[in-house]
Each structure stands twice: as C-alpha cells, then as structure tokens.
C-alpha cells in the first residue's frame, strides 16, 4: 500500500495527524500552562543553546512563557479555525452551488451574482473588513473566513452539477419518479465530492495562513489565546535579540501548510482523471 505514488498522501496525512494529536492532547503534551508568565525567565533561548534552561525546550517569550507549550496550544486554534471554516464554507458553498446548477434560471442568477460580488473582493481584505466589523473572537473569525471562502465551493459544484445533470443516470433517476431534491442530493452531489475534497484540503491550508495573518495584524482571536500568528506578531520586535520568538511559530505554520498542501496534491493526483491517465 505504501507505494511511491501515494507518498505525498502518507507524508501529508502524517503531518496533519500529528497536528490533530497536538491539538486534541494539548493539555497532556504541553509541559506548562501556555499563559503562565515567569518574568524572571523572560527571553530564554532554546534549551540546547548556551543560556537555555532545561525547563524550556524551545525557550521562553518576552513575558517568560514557555514557547513549546504555546506552539502546542496554538495548533488548536489553527486546526479548529481551519476545520470549522472548511466544513461550514463547504456545506454552504456546495448547497448553493448545487441548487444554482441544478435548477438554473433565477436561482442560478442570484447565486452567481452574489458569488461574483464576493469574488471581486480580495480575500484577505474582506476578512479584515468583517473582523473589524464583528470584533475579535474565535467564532467571528470563523464566520469571517467562511464568508470569504464559500464562493470557491459554490463555483466548482455549480459547474460540475451543470454537466452532471445532463447525464443519463440523472434522467434515469428522474424517470423512476425521483423528486428534484432527492435526485440532486442522492445522485448528483455525491459525484462532485472528489473535487470538493481537493478544494477543501487546499482551502484549509489557505485558511490557516489567513488566520495567522489576521492574528498577526491583531484582528484575530483575543490576545490571551496563543496562536501562531499572534506569536509571530509579538516576537517580531525582538527579532534581533530573540529570534526564536519568530522562528518556531513560523516553522509551525510552514510545516502545517506544507503537510496539508502535500495531502491535497496527492488527493488531486488520485481524483483527477487527466493526471491518472498520464501515469
């Protein structure tokens, strides 16, 4: 099973699984409370360097908080925001896209125009605008990201449904007396899942980066919740004296996004019929 062809999926999946374990088991894995400030130990370098303390594997930040624990807890926000956004945006986008594609006419007009309006805004800008309007908070953050992410699902599903609904199996289902919604959600939508899965994995990577960007700009979750983006933002002014404040959260974001992209790439290789034929 572990063929070279599937290497991308295995590596990507392993990274994602590790992230999930980190997030779920954070209280067990983190050596300390991520909020606990020990001002006397502030700006300690990682353990293996000259001034490092054994208690802090990755050193401490500007308020004497344990970097490792904060990174572990930070994975929770990244994961939760990433997963929740992808699921909500996916459900909303797929439903609207399927309805627009299947029924056409007015429904299609409305959905397409609305999604074009959303598409016209730069993605990060719309998220910033929504966060500024709603205020800080994890729920609001997910809402903002979802509002700016659903369009992609909607467009892809609409396109697929447009071509699927002309196929014989759909006509057959209708001929057997299937109601519109039954045919749509029982026979048409399941056939779009392959593309949706690929969009969702890539989408998750984008969402994690956007969450970090918003936290970096101070528009994400409240300051007391550790996130990778806000750790980067706080560490930035110490980049000369204490580079580990930015290196480790940066690495965490990089590895996560890399892993998810790898997984998405692998999934696309399997699902994309064009690529499949070339092999």
């Amino acid at each position, binding site marked *: 099973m572990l063929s070279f062809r599937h290497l991308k999926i295995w590596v990507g999946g392993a990274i994602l699984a590790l992230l999930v374990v980190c997030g779920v088991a954070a209280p067990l894995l983190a050596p300390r409370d991520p*909020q606990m*400030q020990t*001002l*006397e130990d*502030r*700006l300690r370098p990682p353990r293996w360097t000259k001034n490092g303390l054994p208690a802090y594997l990755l050193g401490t930040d*500007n*308020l*004497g908080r344990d970097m490792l624990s904060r990174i572990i807890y930070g994975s929770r926000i990244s994961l939760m925001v990433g997963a929740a956004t992808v699921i909500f945006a996916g459900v909303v986008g797929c439903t609207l896209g399927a309805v627009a594609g299947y029924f056409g006419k007015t429904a299609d007009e409305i959905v397409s125009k609305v999604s074009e309006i959303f598409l016209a805004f730069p993605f990060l800008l719309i998220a910033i605008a929504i966060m500024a309007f709603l205020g*800080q908070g994890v729920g609001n953050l997910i809402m903002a990201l979802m509002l700016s992410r659903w369009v992609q699902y909607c467009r892809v599903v609409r396109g697929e449904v447009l071509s699927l609904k002309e196929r014989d199996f759909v006509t057959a289902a209708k001929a057997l007396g299937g109601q519109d919604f039954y045919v749509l959600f029982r026979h048409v939508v399941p056939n779009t899942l392959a593309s949706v899965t690929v969009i969702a994995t890539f989408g998750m990577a984008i969402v994690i980066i956007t969450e970090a960007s918003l936290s970096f700009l*101070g528009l994400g979750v*409240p*300051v*007391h919740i550790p996130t990778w983006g806000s750790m980067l933002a*706080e560490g*930035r*002014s*110490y*980049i*000369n*004296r204490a580079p580990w404040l930015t290196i480790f959260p940066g690495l965490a974001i990089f590895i996560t996004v890399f892993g998810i992209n790898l997984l998405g790439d692998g999934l696309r290789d399997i699902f994309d019929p064009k690529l499949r034929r070339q092999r």
Partner: protein
Amino acid sequence: MSRDFSRRSFLKAGATAAAAIAAWPRYVLDASAASRDRVTIFHSSVADSIHPYNHSSSPIYGNWQHVIEPLLEYSVDRKDFVGVLVESWQFQGNKWVFKLRKGVKFHNGATFTAKDVVFSVEKMRDEKGGSLQAPNFKDVAEIQTPDDYTVVFVTKQPMAVFLDRLDNRFVLSKEAGDKFGDKIYENLIGTGPYKFVSYQRGGNLVFTRNDDYWGGRANIKEVVFKKVTEDAARLAALESGQADFINNVPDHEVARLKKHPRVRIDQVEGQRMFFFAFNMAFKPWDNKLVRQAANYSVDAPAIIRNIFDGIGYPCNGPVGANVFGADPKHKRYPYDPKKAKELLAQAGFPNGCDIQLYYSAGRYPKDREICQVVAAQMVKSGFRVELISQEWALFWDKQGVNGGRLPFYYIGRGGLTDADTLYDQYFRTGTTKRTNYSNPEYDKLIEEQQRTSDSKKRTQILQQAGKHIMDEALFIPLFNLADIYGVARNLEWKKRPDEKIKAWDMKIKA
C-alpha cells in the same frame, strides 16, 4: 512588427526595468538619508486628524507647533513659563493681562494681533466643531482686547494656574479663518517656523521652512513626520537610513544600537506618567474597595524591572517625585494579591469579578506587554481580565476615553510638570468625562489651589488633594519611563522630556 516587439523590445524593456529595480533602493536611500535640507521623523503618534485642536497629546502638540504657535511655553531648563507670542504678562486678581509680541507675521502676510487670539480661543472652545481642548478655558468668563496688542482673560475666580492652561494653545490666523471658513484646517495658517504643506489621513505631515520667521530662520528646509506604530518598523527605517529620527526605541535594542555606525541613542527621563484609569460611572469601579483591591494587585516595580530592563521610575504617589505638588510622604499600594482578594470579598465579589481592560496597542512603549503582564497579575487576586485593544482614534475620541465610554484603561499623561494638570483633568467634576469622578470636597481643594498664587501654600493643598486620591484609590499610578530616541549620528537636536520634537532646534552636520 508585433513579432519584433515580442522579442527585442521585450528584452530591452526588461533589461531597463531590471536595472531600474536594482538601482531603486539605492536611489531611495540616497534621497532620504539625512540630507542637509530634509529631516524624516518616524513617530508612533503623529496628528490623528487635520484638526489641530482635536487632541490633547504632547507629541502632537509638538507636531503642530511647527506651524502654529502658543502664547507661551513651559521651559524645562528654566522650570518656568517663557513667552512665545506674548512678551509679558501680569496676574491681577481674576484677570490675566498679556502683552503680545509686535511685528509677528502670519504665513499669509497678515500681522498677528489680539483678534487672532480671540478667534483661536473660540475655535478651541468649539467642542461641537471637534476640539478636545475646550476644558482649558472652562474658568474663563470673558476675553477683552483693549488694544491690538493686549489680551485680557477674565476668569470666574482668581486662577493662579492659568499659564499652564495656556501652554500648548496655538494661535491661528483670523484672516485665514474669514477667507476659508470651514476649510480653515486644510489651509492651516500660523506664525510658526514652518509652513503647512500636506496632511495624509493615517498621519503623515509635511512642513516646509518659513523663511520670514520672526524668531530667525530654521536650519532644515523640509520636515516629514510619518506615523509608524510598529517599534520594529521604525527601527528598521532608522537603521536603513529611511528615517533620521525615531521615538520609543525599545529598551532591549538600546545596547545593540549604541554600536550602530549610523545611529545615536538619546535618552531622557520622560514627563509622561503612565497609569490605569477607572471610570467610576461603571461597576465595579464605583466601589472604593474594588479600586483598592486593583491597586494592591498591580506590581509596577516588577514591570520596570523585567519589561523595561530596569529603565524606569515607579510612582510612589499620584504623581512622580519631580512634579510640582508631589508629596514625598506618599507610598504606593504595595503588591499584595492576598489583601486584594480580601478586599474584593468584602466588596461583594468573593468569587472574583470580570473586568475589561482597554488599551491602544502601539501607542506607548510595550503597551501590549504591560497590559498582558498586569492581566496576569490581577488574575492572582481574583480579577478575570479581558484585554481589548482599539485603534487610537476610536480609543481616545468621543466613543472612548473622552466620551466616558471605557470602564478601565491604560493611558499616559504627557508633559506632566504640575500635579494640578492631572488632578483637574481626570478627577475634578465635569472637566472631562475620563473618570466621571465627582466629589465636592475634592473639587473645593482643586479650585482653592488654582486661586492660590503662593507656591508653598499651593503645594500643601495639592498634597492634600493627592492624599484624597490615594485614600480613595481613584486610579492606579504606575511609572514614568525613559524617552528613548534613535537619531542619525549627524543630526543634532535638543533633548526634551516633554516628547515634543522641534525641527527648528535641529541641525545636520555635513
């Protein structure tokens, strides 16, 4: 033809573009490194609006003073007021008589007279028009102008501290006001050493030299103030030569910058006092026991020691030791979370209480860190603190501090040389809405010292008022910090503790 373009012309154009891109940073560096004609100042707070009276903040006074000037000014060297647009003054009972400087011209050529003073005070008193400086004239009953060069302020009662209120009250041209009407601030005309060129929303100010300045021509021709709230961004600009002057250098960078070939560090004990203010119109801050508990929960010396590497001066009373009216007998509430917990329980919060702490990240040195540390300190005594950072304009204006909308906030009072300034502005009934405190006995003390011209007696009354503030725990005094400036080595200026940066005191060595 089109084929030709797609190869040759493309390559040519590409090569030109590449060369331009390669040369561009070098060109920019040369253009903005301290030249003899221009100084570029990256500052954490530059004017938030084009309205020069829509603030009450020391560094912003300094910005506008390039263009519009005050009647008089506090001189740190002489520890007294010195005339700028006035030559002399007299205190006569409930009258202050000012003799104006003659031969001063506005940038539009008009002569400076008493009419301009009256006009400007009207603008400052116009709160509906956006001024935040009206409270300074709260006790003024009438302004008389017996002749063109005499202005008499008649106060409701004798007011010994009036000179302090006139510090930083800048004078506009009435002629420009008549000409431009509502657009007067977009066409700012003053008497200052520099002329107004442009303002960009977000805080970029550009001034150019006034060659006919009455006080003698400045050395530097053009001044650019750019608002940059990120410490790291200001620092990077200074090191790369994009900026010649920055404020609020983070103390953890001082040691490194002292070795920098292009940069000098200038450090001075600041007049700005930092504190946490309660708005007593909000629960639970109406309760004295809760306010005392909060005072017992904050460890200011630990913040200085750890966050500021020891560079700072904790307050022992309601004002710093160097301020007029300070009382050496005062002691700050010691850090004692146990005692705080008891007080909270007595006040009816045995299980602690939820509070919100507002601040404006990037405004003051390490504000975000201070608030996080204090939140963690206060948790130990049972306060559950939610931190909320707001944009400065929102935080400070009618929606925020000055509208009495924020229950608990981190703030600094700059240019604090006389305790009366703080005591009146924050705690006297009705002066501002910043704390909504009201106590007739306290008001009486403040009014009495403002009438008193004998400085010994005034000190005594101020000390009494200070004791009242400490006993009632009206706020949480923290500390004064060092103002740390990063300056290009070839730039000379006069260090000041009041956060003003005056380009006309600057000189660039060849």
